C-alpha cells in the first residue's frame, strides 16, 4: 500500500501528545524536582572533586558543570519509550497500526517529539534557568557557536533516536526488550559524556568512544556550545553525526523490513 506523506497529519500526533501531557500537573512538578535534584548532586560531586582547583587538565569547573547540565538535563527531557513497539507486538495491535495510511515509523517519531517538546519546555529549560542563577553555567561562546550548537544538538537527537529504533525493532525477535534497552542506556550513561565528560575518561576508553555513536549525542554539541570545537571545524563533526544517523538508519530499516515479515499476532 502506498502511504502518502502529509506533514500536517504527523504534526497532529505531536500536538496531541503534547496537549495530553499538560493534564498531569503533579507529574510535571515532580519531574522538574527530579531533574534539579539529579543535577544538584552532580554539581556538588564535581565541585568536591575539583576541591578549589581552577582547572584540571585545561578544563575549568564551569565547563564541566555546563556539560553536565546540558547532557543530563537533556537526557531527562529525551523521553523515548523503547518498549512502544514491543507492546504493540505483544497485544497484537501492531496489525491495525500497519493498516493505517500513515507511516508507522514517522508516527512514532512525531509522538516522541510531542512528549520531548513538552519536557524541554517544562523540565529542561526551567532547570537550565535555575542552575544558571545558582551555579556557574557558562553562556554560549558566541552567536555562531550557539547556532552550530542548535544544529548539532538536533543531529545528536537523531543519533539517539536511531539507537533507540534499533532496540525497538529488535522486539520482533526478542519478546522483552527491557533488558536490551537498559543495556543501551548503560552505554549511553557511561560513554556519552553526560555524566562524566569524555575529557576525563581514560585515554583508551575515550579513543574507543570516538569509534561509537555515543559521543555524538550530547558531547559534540556541548563542545561546540563552549567553543571547545572551533566553529571552523564544525563541518567535520556534523559529518560524523550525519554518518552515524545514516548508518544506523540503514540497520534499523533492515530490521524493520525483516521484522515485519515475521509478525505473529498472539491472541485475538
Amino acid at each position: 500500500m502506498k502511504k502518502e506523506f502529509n506533514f500536517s497529519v504527523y504534526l497532529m500526533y505531536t500536538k496531541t501528545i503534547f496537549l495530553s501531557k499538560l493534564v498531569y500537573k503533579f507529574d510535571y512538578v515532580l519531574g522538574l524536582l527530579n531533574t534539579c535534584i539529579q543535577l544538584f548532586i552532580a554539581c556538588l560531586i564535581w565541585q568536591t572533586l575539583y576541591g578549589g582547583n581552577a582547572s584540571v587538565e585545561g578544563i575549568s569547573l564551569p565547563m564541566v558543570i555546563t556539560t553536565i547540565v546540558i547532557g543530563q538535563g537533556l537526557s531527562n527531557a529525551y523521553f523515548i519509550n523503547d518498549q512502544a513497539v514491543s507492546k504493540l507486538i505483544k497485544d497484537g495491535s501492531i496489525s491495525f497500526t500497519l493498516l493505517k495510511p500513515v507511516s508507522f515509523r514517522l508516527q512514532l517519531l512525531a509522538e516522541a517529539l510531542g512528549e520531548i517538546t513538552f519536557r524541554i519546555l517544562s523540565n529542561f529549560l526551567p532547570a537550565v534557568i535555575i542552575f544558571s542563577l545558582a551555579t556557574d553555567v557558562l553562556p554560549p561562546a558566541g552567536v555562531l557557536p550557539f547556532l552550530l550548537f542548535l544544529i548539532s544538538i538536533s543531529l545528536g537527537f537523531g543519533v539517539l533516536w536511531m539507537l533507540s529504533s534499533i532496540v525497538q525493532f529488535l522486539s520482533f525477535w526478542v519478546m522483552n526488550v527491557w533488558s536490551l534497552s537498559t543495556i543501551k542506556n548503560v552505554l549511553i550513561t557511561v560513554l556519552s559524556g553526560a555524566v562524566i565528560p569524555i575529557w576525563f575518561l581514560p585515554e583508551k576508553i575515550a579513543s574507543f568512544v570516538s569509534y561509537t555513536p555515543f559521543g555524538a549525542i550530547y558531547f559534540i554539541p556541548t563542545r561546540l556550545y563552549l567553543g571547545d570545537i572551533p566553529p571552523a571545524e564544525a563541518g567535520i563533526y556534523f559529518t560524523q553525526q550525519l554518518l552515524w544517523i545514516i548508518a544506523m538508519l540503514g540497520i534499523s530499516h533492515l530490521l524493520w523490513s525483516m521484522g515485519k515479515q515475521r509478525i505473529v499476532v498472539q491472541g485475538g
Partner: protein
Amino acid sequence: MEWLSLFKHYSVLTIKERFQYKLNAILVSLAVFLREGATIAVIYFMLLRFGSINGWEMYELLFLYSYIFFTYGLFILFFTGLRDFEGLVRIGSFDRYLLRPRGLIFQIIVAKVDWFAAIGHGSLGLLLFLYSAFQVNVSWSAINITYCALAIIGGVLIQAAIFLLMASLSFTFISVSNLRQILYWNTRKFAGYPISIFHASIKILLIYIVPFAFVNYFPSQFLLHKTDMAEFPALYMYIAPAVGFALFGLAMLYWRYSLQFYKSTGN
C-alpha cells in the same frame, strides 16, 4: 520448618515462571548487573583522574558503595513483594492473602522472591565488597566481622522498614509511587557518596528522615575511621546496626495498626 518448605516451594515457582523465557531471564539479570555497574564505572573513572573525593579514596568509596548494592540485593530477595505491594492493593488481590491461613508479611515475602534481580544486584554488591574489603585499611578481626554482618542485616531492615511504611500508607492513599520515587530512589542517589560532601539539609535527610546514612556511611566509618566522621556524633557508628532492627519493629507496629483501615478496591 514448614515456613522453610513453603519458601522453597514459592522460590521454585518464581524461578520456573522466569525460565519460561530463558534468554529473557538471563538478559534481565545481565541488564540489572550492568545498570548498577554503570554507577561504579563512573565513580571508578572519576577517581582514576582525581584521586580522591573529600579524603575518600577509590577502594574506600567502592567499599561504601558495596553496602548499597549488597543490602539491596538481599532486600529484593526477601522483600520484592513489599516493594510492589501497591499493585496488590490496587488490583485487589491482597484480599486473597487475607483469606489464607498464614501470616500476611510472610505471604508477601515468599510470594515474590526475586532470585534473578537479587543475583544481579547481590553478586555485584558481593564482588565489590570482597574486592574492596581487602584493599581498604581494615583489620578483619572477629569484632569487625560481626559488626559488618550485623550492619548488613540492619541495612536490609532499614530499607524494608521504609517499604513497609509505604505499604502501610497505601492502605489509606492507594498511590504512593510518587512519594516513593522522591523518598527512596532519589535519596539513594545521594547515599553512594560520603555524606560529608553534602549540604546540611541533605545530611539531615539522610540521617534522620530516610536514614540511608546508617545503611552504608556510618558502618563504613566504624571500619575505616575517616577524618570527616568528626562532624557527626561518634555514637552513630556504634548504633548503626541496631537502627535497622528498631525501625523495622516500629514499621511493623504501624503496619498492624494500618491494616484495620484496609478496604478492598477489587470487585
